[in-house]
């Protein structure tokens, strides 16, 4: 029996539960596709087929013996190579971490294990998760399955490529300044940066503790909700996680959105939008109008400043992690990575502290502006069509920092705010590359984002088209 590589995660789990196919058969199909496409896309950091098949056989044995199965039982996933697992290397896309063997397992992985998911490969990423394009001086650029000359986006580049190409059914990424939403946008995926504090970062490589978020990249909205459901919730190992109840995201995901109020910020986001991207963004708003939602124009003049605030925190904190290593191993860091970390060495302590202290009042002001009269916010993703690898190969040349920040200007503000924000596929540009818009919500209101994204997906079939790679 041939298994559709673009089967949804939800359908794959249901197929195993019904006995339509086994976890071993599903894993064999994924491994075969990794073998055929992994090198072409340069998305795989490591795979151990024998181990993956042994895990799958254990999942099948558990199901056959009638043991309770989790919602993701037997489904092959793979994750950005920065989620630690005891006994396995986590290279974090870095030369200096090439043989790093963590002494802990990430809570997000443990929770996916508990839900029954299989973890069959490590996925390439930008060095230390510090870059929005997908370039990596050590491991090479990951390739976009829609067109291998174009970027995948980063830093969860392998996650974007592997899921879009149907190598696995979903993947974890991390998002410090857009690293889940950018590859989701470039690869035509659904990507969720959840609320800061909803998902534990314990056992994930730290880059910027104020801004790091853990979340899933998937091919459908429902798949995304399924994965987030498995990993969300308080974790004593991460003191920033909330003790708040985690809602059942699928319980309301099919609900009607008639009467929903969608805020569109008139400041900042439209300033530099490419015409083609603007047309697709506006078309997505037209879909929402047809579905009975009301578009509400709002103002938030400080939006541009949030890009700077995000950068102050991410640069300072990443430099704090790496300053000693930079001194010891300068030549073994990629040029772009060390250039970006250098920027963090220049921020005065007062500036850093003020950027942190401003976070609460700015979040309050943002929520009041955006959600006083609306349920969700709609914004563009990338403001240009997905660029080529060559066009964005800046290394640390003149203007590289500004160019990188520019690429994710619409995406970075939400990391400082910490509100849930997701990338939703919005059709294709003339060159056949995906476009995407963002939905942002009140803190801990991922359920409304999923409902809003799912309504669009139902109406447009935006996640039904897949790259032709065979």
């Amino acid at each position, binding site marked *: 029996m041939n298994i559709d590589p673009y089967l949804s995660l939800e359908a794959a789990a249901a197929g195993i539960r019904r006995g339509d196919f086994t976890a071993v058969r599903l894993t064999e199909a994924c491994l075969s596709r990794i073998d055929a496409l992994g090198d072409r896309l340069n998305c795989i950091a490591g795979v151990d087929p024998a181990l993956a098949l042994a895990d799958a056989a254990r999942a099948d044995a558990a199901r056959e013996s009638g043991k309770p199965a989790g919602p993701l039982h037997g489904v092959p996933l793979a994750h950005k190579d920065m989620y630690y697992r005891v006994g396995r290397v986590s290279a974090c896309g870095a030369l200096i971490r090439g043989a790093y063997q963590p002494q802990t397992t990430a809570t997000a992985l443990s929770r996916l294990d508990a839900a029954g998911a299989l973890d069959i490969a490590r996925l390439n990423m930008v060095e230390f998760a510090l870059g929005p394009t997908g370039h990596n001086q050590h491991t090479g650029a990951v390739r976009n399955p829609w067109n291998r000359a174009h970027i995948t986006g980063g830093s969860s580049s392998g996650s974007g490529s592997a899921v879009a190409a149907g190598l696995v059914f979903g993947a974890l990424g991390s998002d410090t300044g857009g690293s889940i939403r950018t590859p989701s946008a470039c690869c035509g995926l659904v990507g969720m940066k959840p609320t800061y504090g909803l998902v534990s970062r314990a056992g994930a490589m730290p880059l910027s503790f104020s801004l790091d978020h853990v979340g899933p990249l998937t091919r459908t909205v429902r798949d995304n909700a399924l994965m987030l459901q498995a990993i969300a919730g308080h974790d004593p190992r991460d003191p*920033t996680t909330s003790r708040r109840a985690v809602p059942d995201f699928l319980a309301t995901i099919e609900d009607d959105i008639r009467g929903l109020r969608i805020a569109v910020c008139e400041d900042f986001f439209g300033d530099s939008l490419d015409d083609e991207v603007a047309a697709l963004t506006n078309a997505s708003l037209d879909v929402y109008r047809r579905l009975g939602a009301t578009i509400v124009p709002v103002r938030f003049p400080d939006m541009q400043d949030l890009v700077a605030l995000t950068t102050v925190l991410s640069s300072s904190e990443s430099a704090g992690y790496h300053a000693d290593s930079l001194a010891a191993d300068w030549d073994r860091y990629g040029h772009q990575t060390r250039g970006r970390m250098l920027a963090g060495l220049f921020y005065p302590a007062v500036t850093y502290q003020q950027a942190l202290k401003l976070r609460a009042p700015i979040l309050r002001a943002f929520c009041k502006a955006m959600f006083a009269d609306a349920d969700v916010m709609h914004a563009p993703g990338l403001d240009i069509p997905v660029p080529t690898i060559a066009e964005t190969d800046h290394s640390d040349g003149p203007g590289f920092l500004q160019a990188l920040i520019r690429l994710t200007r619409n995406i970075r503000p939400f990391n400082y705010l910490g509100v849930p924000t997701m990338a939703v596929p919005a059709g294709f540009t003339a060159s056949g590359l995906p476009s995407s818009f963002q939905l942002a919500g009140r803190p801990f209101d991922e359920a409304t984002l999923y409902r809003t994204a799912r309504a669009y997906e139902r109406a447009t079939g935006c996640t039904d088209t897949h790259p032709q790679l065979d």
Partner: protein
Amino acid sequence: MTDRERADWIRQTYGIDVTPEMIAEPARISAANSAVVRKLAARLPLEAEPVDYLRELEAMAPPATGSEGK
């Protein structure tokens, strides 16, 4: 401070051997972003401690539904 002075400071403070050319853009971006923070700090309240941000996230959330966290 010139880029050469900045490079000397980086070398003395962090032991990282950089050239003035390497730090020109990072220093310029840092200065621009620091100016944004100063501008906001002059206008917005700074009484909050960083941990207040976590409380603000909870305060701005809709009422909780569902079972208590894991």
